[in-house]
């Protein structure tokens, strides 16, 4: 576990910053909710927006006069599914590629540790940050909601966050796969960000018409819909299982690829 602990130690500043950003963002979103709720005609305005926009940001619930609906649209769909997905894929896509690019991998590999272990420990080093952001944010939501005299279903708020963990783990595993393939961190980063973003768009497109509905299945975002849990109280167990399965497959592929590849002097 030494590599995981080391990895965590060197990234605590980023984790702290991420949490502060989301605490601030959440507090801000909730603080404007009372105004939105009171303002008349906002719901008509929402429905007048282009459908493509709504399918991206308002999956599974467009009623923003409800706190759950508002959070879904203003925080979860883009903040969790897109932003955090991109963030964790980005971070993980640097984990090995940066060591190869900076050539510190030579030093690391001169220790009696297998490549598989390095990879898995680096992955494990990300888990606490994923869990932490899923603790701080709902706590801030509950605190702020109480402050503005709103209620939110604690159980489904918990499920919303709990179900995001396998989604974010899958994003990490995807990033890690890119990070063992490329020698330059930047290329791995770009591809990781691009893939998460692309999959988000694909999922949105698939919701626009029946014709496209099948293509959503290739998107990680398809298997995690915070709105569905938070608003409709419908937890997609199968989605969670699929995300875990994808994570395992991606990790295994990354381990095998990493074990077989040459670490050449560039």
């Amino acid at each position: 576990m030494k590599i995981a602990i080391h990895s965590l130690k060197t990234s605590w500043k980023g984790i702290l910053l991420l949490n502060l950003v989301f605490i601030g963002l959440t507090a801000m979103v909730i603080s404007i909710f009372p105004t939105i709720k009171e303002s008349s005609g906002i719901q008509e305005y929402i429905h007048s927006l282009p459908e493509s926009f709504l399918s991206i940001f308002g999956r599974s619930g467009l009623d923003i006069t409800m706190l759950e609906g508002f959070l879904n649209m203003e925080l979860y769909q883009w903040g969790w599914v897109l932003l955090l997905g991109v963030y964790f894929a980005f971070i993980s896509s640097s984990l090995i590629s940066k060591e190869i690019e900076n050539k510190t991998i030579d030093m690391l590999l001169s220790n009696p540790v297998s490549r598989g272990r390095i990879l898995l420990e680096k992955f494990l080093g990300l888990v606490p940050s994923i869990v932490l952001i899923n603790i701080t944010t709902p706590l801030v939501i509950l605190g702020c909601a109480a402050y503005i005299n709103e209620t939110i279903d604690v159980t489904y708020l918990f499920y919303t966050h709990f179900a995001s963990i396998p989604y974010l783990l899958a994003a990490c595993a995807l990033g890690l796969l890119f990070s063992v393939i490329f020698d330059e961190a930047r290329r791995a980063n770009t591809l990781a960000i691009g893939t998460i973003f692309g999959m988000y768009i694909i999922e949105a497109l698939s919701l626009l018409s029946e014709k496209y509905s099948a293509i959503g299945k290739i998107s990680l975002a398809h298997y995690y819909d915070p709105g569905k849990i938070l608003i409709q109280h419908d937890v997609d167990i199968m989605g969670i299982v699929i995300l875990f399965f994808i994570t395992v497959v991606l990790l295994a592929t990354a381990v095998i690829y990493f074990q077989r590849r040459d670490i050449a002097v560039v």
Partner: protein
Amino acid sequence: MIIETENLTKYYGKIRGVEDLSFSIEKGEIFGFLGPNGAGKTTTIRTLLGFLRPTRGKAFIFGKDIEKEMLEIKELTGYIPGELNLYGDLTAKDFLDYFGKLRKNFDEKKLKELLEIFDVPLKRKIKGYSRGMKQKLGIIQAFMHNPELIIMDEPTAGLDPLLQGKFYDYLREEKKEGKTMFISSHILTEVEKISDRVGIIKDGNLIALENIEALKSKKGKVVKVKTKEKIKIRGIKTEEENGWTTFVVTKNVDDIIKKLAKYSIEDIEIGELSLEEIFMHYYR
């Protein structure tokens, strides 16, 4: 045998790295691995350490197969890479702590001893280190788990002469304890100071395995002399350019100088044979 290779070959796609290397290194030996830049020294080392997968051939370290038992090998091995890249954001102390924890045989006493010889500012971040300091830290981490074998890729690059001396003294001490060392270099004088035996690699092929004494006997002088007349000395191949005659003297300097005395010499330069010239002269 500590290291044994059988036709060890590495190709990068179609580009040759090293070809059919077969050699062995005994316990307690300091083996110099000599060759010009680009000859395949680093490729050999990286293959032995498992960074590169051999294209064909076999290698054993401590009798263990490098393709199957790398972790056991690394428990007992230290490594100083040619291009030393350490974690810049860490302090030396954090770096040594981190690596110490990754090694079962980490030896606190040994680390203390090393830090006395190769003192580095432990609390400073490594990115603020000079090249020499980094190199010292590279040496410290390679020895701090008391390894049986230490593989070094051009370890003295970046060390000033004083430190080089200290480093060689340290290697000699380690040798007394039965440690085996593999040192690559492109500088003959560096390797000959310390090695017992030398392997010479050129264009990816091992072209000679020599005792250091045998290699030393292959030393010589390059003589460049400017004369009015054409120089002809029996048994010596000369090259001429702009009135300068160049040739290599490998024995009997006295004889040559006496023969040269017959000519009217305008200018003369006498220098040590460089490694490249030794290659050209002896191993063509």
